[in-house]
């Protein structure tokens, strides 16, 4: 089983080295691919110094476009399993065992680490952002027919089926919400795994207040219109 870690990073020169080191500490045989989304700083160089492959995008594509670059790499290089870990250090690679377990056991095609699946988690965020996250979680849960608590988590493990789907088709901008529904519509199996996430160790989140309003409108529009699309589902016996 060939495994790859996909790490999207935008101006993360202060965090990316530690993230790559922690991924190698989790599994020394894991190939680490850092997708540098047009950073102005030394993100790509630092990633290479720490033994990762760095894919440098010529300009900023946003999280959707950069993560899909990683999925394309994983698909074309024939990886069986991919994990996705954010480049800002908020995901602890030591928790990858829990996220990987249902995928390695063949139970699901994609497993997503959720901050909110476990009770009593200390994740702090602004009130409006929590309300937005909760509303999206409610809408997505209704559509996919199971409880989804964390629709914006980028802490994921995927098998070859899910890698192939995302290499071909992945949403733009802030993609995880739409991707959850995409997975459901393509009849892939998914599950949430409770994890805890760390506070960002340095730098700011790329989501500002005005952007999150635009994001909500855009995502709800995409979800609504997406309900009227037809999707290819895997043929019998391919999985």
């Amino acid at each position, binding site marked *: 089983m060939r495994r790859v870690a996909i790490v999207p990073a935008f101006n993360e020169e202060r965090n990316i080295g530690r993230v790559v080191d922690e991924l190698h500490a989790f599994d020394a045989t894991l190939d680490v691919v850092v997708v540098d989304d047009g950073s102005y700083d030394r993100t790509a160089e630092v990633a290479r110094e720490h033994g990762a492959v760095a894919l440098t995008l010529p300009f900023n594509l946003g999280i959707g476009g950069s993560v899909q670059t990683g999925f394309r790499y994983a698909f074309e290089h024939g990886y069986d399993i991919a994990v996705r870990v954010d480049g800002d250090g908020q995901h602890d690679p030591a928790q990858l065992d829990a996220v990987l377990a249902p995928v390695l056991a063949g139970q699901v095609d994609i497993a997503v680490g959720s901050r909110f699946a476990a009770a009593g988690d200390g994740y702090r965020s602004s009130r409006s952002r929590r309300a937005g996250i909760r509303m999206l979680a409610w809408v997505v849960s209704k559509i996919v027919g199971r409880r989804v608590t964390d629709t914006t988590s980028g802490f994921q493990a995927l098998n070859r089926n899910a890698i192939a789907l995302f290499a071909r088709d992945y949403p733009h901008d802030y993609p995880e919400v739409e991707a959850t529904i995409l997975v459901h519509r393509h009849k892939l199996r998914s599950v949430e795994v409770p994890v805890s996430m760390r506070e960002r160790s340095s730098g700011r989140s790329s989501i500002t207040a005005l952007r999150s309003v635009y994001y909500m409108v855009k995502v709800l529009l*995409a979800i609504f219109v997406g309900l009227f699309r037809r999707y290819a589902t895997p043929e019998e016996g391919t999985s």
Partner: protein
Amino acid sequence: MTPLFVSIAGTVASVLLILVVLELIRSRRLQERYAILWLVTGVVLVVLSAWRDGLNTIAGWIGIRSYPPAALFAVFILFILLVLLHYSTVISRLSAQNVVLAQKLALLEAERGSDASRESTTSSTR
């Protein structure tokens, strides 16, 4: 007062606009981020066409007394300008990115070209 026929015609046309935009998104010929401004335009035009008192009030604000539907045209033109301006910014970004892509491609080809010439020299000396 806005004539009833103008109101109905305006409403039908703006609802059609919204439906066409939604169908373009559904069939993936239009990305959501470029559709939002069109949808806002459609919704504003539906409201102003169907809500005749509202149109009268807005016409009053901008000093149109004789023929309130003129306010509908004014709003319509304003939104078309907004969409065009938005597209100008999009085109500017795309052309800047296109330059970067062309430059990257030239650099990549130069690297590959020097690799190829190195290979051919090693094979010819053999």
